[in-house]
């Protein structure tokens, strides 16, 4: 039905959008500065320069922004609307969610022709987001554990004590580095899927992350 009218619906609340774009910005900054920290270029002209010092400062500042953003999003999943709620991230736990997942998967695998419309998150995407949040938490924990080593027996070092028994120091660096590459893999998938569903669903998938509004064939309850 190409001429069908759609309903404008407010889906993404302000904290969800803020958290999303803070994540985007901080991940870009963290990845760029992180690459430099892992494999620096000799930019320093004299020993009184502070190139690496400033780049690390930017990395740590962005890390705090990212950690606060991720934590806020987790808290919002307890108080936000149904599309932001934590239940959306475990679609495989309910029969309805599993059915939607299969439908989505069949569409992605070119089995079905009908585009399955999802009002909030698509169930396959939320499953990926759950894995992504696990990566975020691993990133935050390994990152702050490495950071805290400059002040051994400080509050941060002590409260992250369990990390030092789980990982060797170098193992922690490797996990931090490999997780970044996995987040890159996710980003490619994420941007592609957003583009795909934007052109297939015609529901303003991409602009909804700026405005909060989506256009759906289903009316608001």
């Amino acid at each position, binding site marked *: 039905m190409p001429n069908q009218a759609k309903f404008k619906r407010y889906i993404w609340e302000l904290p969800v959008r803020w958290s999303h774009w803070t994540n985007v910005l901080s991940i870009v900054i963290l990845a760029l500065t992180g690459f430099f920290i892992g494999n620096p270029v000799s930019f320093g002209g*004299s020993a009184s320069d502070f190139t690496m010092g400033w780049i690390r400062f930017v990395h740590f500042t962005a890390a705090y922004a990212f950690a606060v953003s991720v934590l806020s999003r987790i808290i919002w999943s307890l108080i936000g609307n149904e599309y932001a709620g934590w239940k959306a991230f475990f679609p495989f736990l309910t029969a309805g969610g599993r059915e939607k997942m299969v439908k989505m998967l069949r569409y992605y695998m070119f089995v079905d022709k009908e585009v399955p419309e999802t009002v909030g998150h698509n169930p396959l995407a939320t499953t990926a987001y759950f894995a992504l949040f696990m990566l975020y938490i691993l990133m935050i924990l390994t990152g702050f554990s490495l950071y805290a080593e*400059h002040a051994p027996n400080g509050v941060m070092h002590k409260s992250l004590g369990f990390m030092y028994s789980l990982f060797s120091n170098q193992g922690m660096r490797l996990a931090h580095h490999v997780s970044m590459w996995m987040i890159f893999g996710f980003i490619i*998938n994420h941007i592609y899927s957003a583009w795909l569903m934007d052109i297939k669903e015609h529901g303003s998938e991409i602009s909804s992350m700026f405005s909060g509004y989506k256009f759906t064939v289903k009316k608001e309850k």
Partner: protein
Amino acid sequence: MSKQNNCDVFEKAEQSLETREYSIGEVLKQRGVSRRDFLKFCTAMTAALSLPASFAPSVAQALDEVKRPTLVWMNFQDCTGDTEALLRAANPTVGEIILDILSVDYHETIMAAAGHQADEALEATITKYKGKYLCVVEGSISMKDDGVYGCTSGKTHLELARKVCGSALATIAIGTCAAYGGIAAAVPNPTGAVGVKEAVPGATVINLPGCPCNADNLTATIVHYLVFGKIPAMDSKGRPLFAYGKRIHDNCERRPHFDAGQYVEHWGDDAHRKGFCLYKMGCKGPATFHNCPTQRYNEKTSWPVASGHGCAGCSEPQFWDTMSPLYRRLPNVPGFGIEATADKIGLGLVAGVGAAFAVHGALNALRKDKEPEETKEG
């Protein structure tokens, strides 16, 4: 061995026990150490223990009065590198003399007695001073197959460690092998080598890892015990905080070059000759806790980074496995072959994901879809 010889050994042991009534200050005087040198040593030890300078007189007073404790030195699966580090100093120091006096009772490498005589000396010491002597362990302990891969005088090291460390006042695990198993414990660890604390969980163990351990840290640990009558404060890995409380990276003399962004790119390049930071050459200073930059080795002459080689991370548990490759920043990724770095694998992953979605996108552009419409599942 004849009965006569046996008696001689016990007589000698008795005599050496009598001389123990002298205080350390008196013994040093007998050995020709001047008061000035003694006070210099006390000040250096105060600094090594991270105590304020005002503590130096207390250290001197305590060492003046304290009676020399008994100490036995056990060599297990080791290369005797820690003994060498202790004995091969260029000039004899007060510290060495203190350790020399302390270690007369039993030290396989340097003691005059051998065979059954040595066994009896050990037996006599640990029986007479049960719960009062200090034990120094060098080398790892083999646990596999009941510890048969490491034996001394017909007893396994495990058996000896349980006996000697178990009834010691405290055990100092000197070197990375004794502390965490070290090189002998590296994958695949054929002998099941472990450190003292793991082999004898009930023992009071002070870990002084390092390959070799810095002899100054050993002396300082013993001085700490003599002065305060207790073992020093330790971190979660059982290492004294005065020696292992800070990262090498944070006290490194090349740190300004790290912060500035001046790095050695190749061995022997201009940056290397100028003494720039060894971070890109795989220096493990950022992952290693030790006081090498401040304490230094061999009469404070030098340490690896000062001589132009990155830190190998030798004072961290499992350093042989976790710190390798020594000349790269990151460890290899298990299961991908030794040449694959995390970045190569990451690039491969990203390229693979990108290619897969490009194909998916092209196929999607070609296909005709049915638009979403109102369905019953709402």
